Structures are given as C-alpha cells and as structure tokens.
C-alpha cells in the first residue's frame, strides 16, 4: 500500500473513532442531564407512596 494511502486510511479511522466518541459523549451527557432533572421523589419511588388515589 502506498504511504499516502496508508496515512489516509489511518486518518479516516481516527476521524471515525473521534466523531463516534464525541457523539456518544454528547448522548450520555444528555442522559445524565435528564436524570438530574427528574425529581428526587421519583428516583426514590416515594412519589408512589403518597396514596394520591385517596385524595380528592
């Protein structure tokens, strides 16, 4: 394989890996923000213990 083609291939692989990593990073960051935004009572399950069906 010629040297310039080899470096082109390496660059392509690097770009693929980097873009995938950045995209995944952003997705997991959004997931973390979503979890932080959910109320504490929902995470702990105490929201279901308030017997809301008996309230008028």
């Amino acid at each position, binding site marked *: 394989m010629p040297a310039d083609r080899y470096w082109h291939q390496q660059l392509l692989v690097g770009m*693929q*890996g980097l873009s995938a990593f950045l*995209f995944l990073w952003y997705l*997991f960051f959004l997931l*973390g923000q979503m979890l932080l935004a959910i109320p504490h009572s*929902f995470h*702990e399950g105490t929201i279901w*213990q308030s017997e809301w069906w008996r309230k008028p």
Partner: protein
Amino acid sequence: MTVRNDFAPGALALSEQAVHLLRRNPAALADYYIGALPFVLGMLFFWSDMSRNPDAGSYCAPTAAGLAALFMWMKLWQARFCRRLTGILNDAPPEHWSKARCWRTAARQALLQATGLLVLPLAALIMLPLGWVYAFYQNAAVLDGPATRQLKGLYKAAWQQAALWPGQNHLLLTIFSLFATFVLADIAMGLMLVPYLLKWLLGIETAFTFSGMHAMTNTTFLAIVVALTYLCIDPLIKAAYTLRCFSGLSRRTGDDLLAVLKPFLKVAVIAMVLWAGPVSAAQMSPAERAAQVPAVSAQRDYSQRLDDTIQQVLQQRRFAWRLPREKSPAPPPDERSWLTRTLRWFSGIITAFGNSVNRWIESLAEWLGRRFPQEEDDRATPTDWHVLIGFIFYGIGAGLVMLLLITLRRWFRSRLSVQAKTGSTDTAPPIDINDEEISAEDLPRDRWLSMAQELIARGDLRQALRALYLSVLAQLGDSGRVRLARFKSNRDYLNELVRRVHAEPELLTRFDRCMAAFERAWYGMHPVTAKHISDFKGDQARIFFLVQHAATVGEPGNG
C-alpha cells in the same frame, strides 16, 4: 434476483440453534462479557450517581466521557464475540486480532452503533421499521470482518442481510421479546426474594426488607433489573443473528454445505483410498499381482473390518435418526406452516371443549326432564329443553348480579370504616411506639410531641425519648432538610443533613446530639432520666426554632 424462502431457517429453529451454539462454546461468552460487564457496571454507577447525588451535576461531563469510552470497548468485544461464533460455524481457527485491527473495529462499530442509540428508539416509536433497523445493527456487529474493512461496505452488507427473510426476522424478535419479558420478571422476583431469604435464614436485615415492596419503585432497582436482563439475553440474540447472517451469506458462498460436509470428508478420503487399491491392482502384471496377493488379502480384511465397524457404529442409538425408516412408510409431508398447524390444533381443542359442554347441557336437560315430568310443567316439553337452559342461565345471571351488589356493598362499608378510622385518629393514635417498623413519616410533628408528653406523664421515658426523636425527624422532613424514607437509617439522615445544611452548623450539632442520645437509650442499655428528657427537649426546641427562623428569613431548606 429472487430468493426462495425455502432456504430460510425457521425462527424457532434459529433460536434453538443459537442456544446450542452458546452451550457448546461457553468460552465465546468470555469475549462478550469482557466488553459488556464494564459498560453495564459503569452505566449503573452513572445512573445511580446522577439520580441520587446532589453534586453529580458538577462532574456529569467527565463521567459521560468515561461511559462513551466504555461503550466503544463493549462494541469492540461484541464484534469479536460474533466473529468467534462465525469462525466456529465455519470450522475455522480463531482469527488474529492485531492492535491496528482492534482500533479499526472499535472506530467502525462505535460510529455505527452510536447512531443506534437514536435511531432504534425512533424506529420503535414508528413501530413499522423496527425489525429491519434492529436486524441492521445486529448484523453490523456480526459482519465486521476482513471482508468489510470499509464502513460503506459494512453498511451495505448489514442492510442486505437485514432485508433478507423479514418474516423470520420479525418472528425471531417476537420470540426473544417474550423470552426477555420472562427473564425480566424472573430477575425482578429473584432480587426481591433474596433479601428476604437472607433475613429468614440468616437474620440479616437489608434496605429491601426494611422498605418492603417500596424498594421496587426506585429507578436504580429498575435499571439493575433491565441491565441484568440485557446481559442474559443479548449474547443469545447476537448468536441468533450470527446464525442468520451465516445462512444468508451461505446462499452465495455455500459455507453451510461445506461446514456440514467437513466431518464426512475423512470418510470419503478413506473410501477413495480403498477404491483406488483394487483399480490399481487390476492394471498390474500377473507377476506383480502374485506379489501383491498377501497385501490385497490383508487390505480386504482391513476393509471388511472397517465395514463391520461402520455398521456397528451406525447401529448405535445416537445415529438411529440418520437411518431411513424402511419398516413404516413416511407420512406425507404437511405443506401447511407451523402457525397454521398450531392454530388448527388450538381450534380443534376449543371445538372439542364446546362439544363436551354441549353434551353436559343435554345430559342436564335430560336429567331435569326425568325429575320434572311433562304433566307438571306444560311449557317444558321434552323437545324444548332449551327453555330449561334459559332458566338456568337467567339464574346464573341473577346470581352474578347479586354477587356484584354484595361486593359493592362491602367495598362501600370498608371505605366508610377507613374514613371513620382516619377521622378518629385525633383521639386514639394506632401507632405502637415499640414497633420497629414505624417511621417518622407516619405522624406529623405535633402528634409525635403529644405522644411524647403522654408517655412522659406515664413514666415511660425511654419510649418518650423515641417519640421526641421522631418528632425531630418529622420536623426536618417537613422543612425539606431530609427526605424521610422507611429504609433510611439514622446515619443516612445525618449524612443527608451534612450534605444539605452544611451552612447551619448549630443545626447539625443539635441533631447529632439528639441522635446520640436516642441511640444510647434505644439501642443501648443506658437508663433514661428526667434530665435526659429535658436536655433532649431543649435540643428539639432549638432545632424547631432554627428551622422556623430559616423559613421566616427565606433561607432555602435544602441549600
């Protein structure tokens, strides 16, 4: 090119083959779990931390970066797992994975599979393309080998295989969805029952036994159940899609035939050697033939022994299914699909059941006809027995209506009694202060205080101290300093208070003193005197003042 569906392996057979493939090669699972376990553990840590830790927002970004790296690691090893299974199917030696190949595979897989995190939920929302999209992402992991070095080639190959045999693909997904549902329920029940087994057999109390069924409603528990289900099911799904791709590709390469024929090639070589011997002997001169006579007879003995051995082996039970059944003619092949046959069988059972019920009703009518002769009832003639059946069904309907009315009446009465109990709690509290299961959230602060006063008046100082301590907790819970939960320990409340109200050192000191006094008296052997009660009440009043003062000046409770 049109493809006949006859070549498609059935979905049920494919799932069975996947199970057998994994059972015969458990070492391949090591490849899968080397990649999947770190990611799943990291994801659970991330989930738990982001959902509970109030400071988690400050390091969400670096944690997400770590999770992205673990995802890439998992996808690399999933591709290796699928390649290993493909090698087993082809009866090929394990492939060599150089460092450069690992990097290339990780980059390709990460880029393709990362889009799946967005595309798969969207496809599930639309529902119609989900089967094809899911198969595409599974195929992308399976087909990432030397033949698909470029991303474009991998993409095209995965789509080609995903478009193949859609009926089989959707049926396969249905089977795995049902299976996953059962696995999910099993794991959830197992996780709930193990703490109770520990409690009953070893006396070990855990957060699950303290909080009962409420432990199932927190999101971390649900995330753990889903993660364990994924770890159980996903290798099986990947094995099934590896088999599916193997069948799909074999339509052009014939790899499946080669894999089936390989064990028989050795026998064919021996047969060719044995056949070549007599042919070469026929071409010899008489002198050469005379010289070869002992060798030929020895070879004939050898071939005779080989035939006998083959016959003996074929008589064994495990090879019996390969032999033709000459005694009984084979039944004509059923052209209908298995689904049609199953539905026919099911409808036959229902029809037989209906006929049985019909016979019972007729027998009942005959019996009633004998018991009540014709002259006693002019309307009920032997021919119009259905009038009797009509009366019976009217009776059953009336009974059901009565049952419904009785149930409704009981429900209204029980509801009224509950309301009456709720209204009468002001005068007679149903709380037993000695009960270890009670929590500060069971009563408001004032009720705990009044209970403490009653207990002090009766001289039950130890119980009064507990009521006072619970009033402190209720006060802190009302003001948002802590979140009351049945499974939390005193140390949990103290840690929560340290985290939330570090700007109020006096509140922390007072609560710490209250907690120590309560634990000394309740869990230890320290006697409780009037001075202890008076000191405790002083701390409790001060805590009440601090909380009220903060609320008056507008300081946030959970700053």
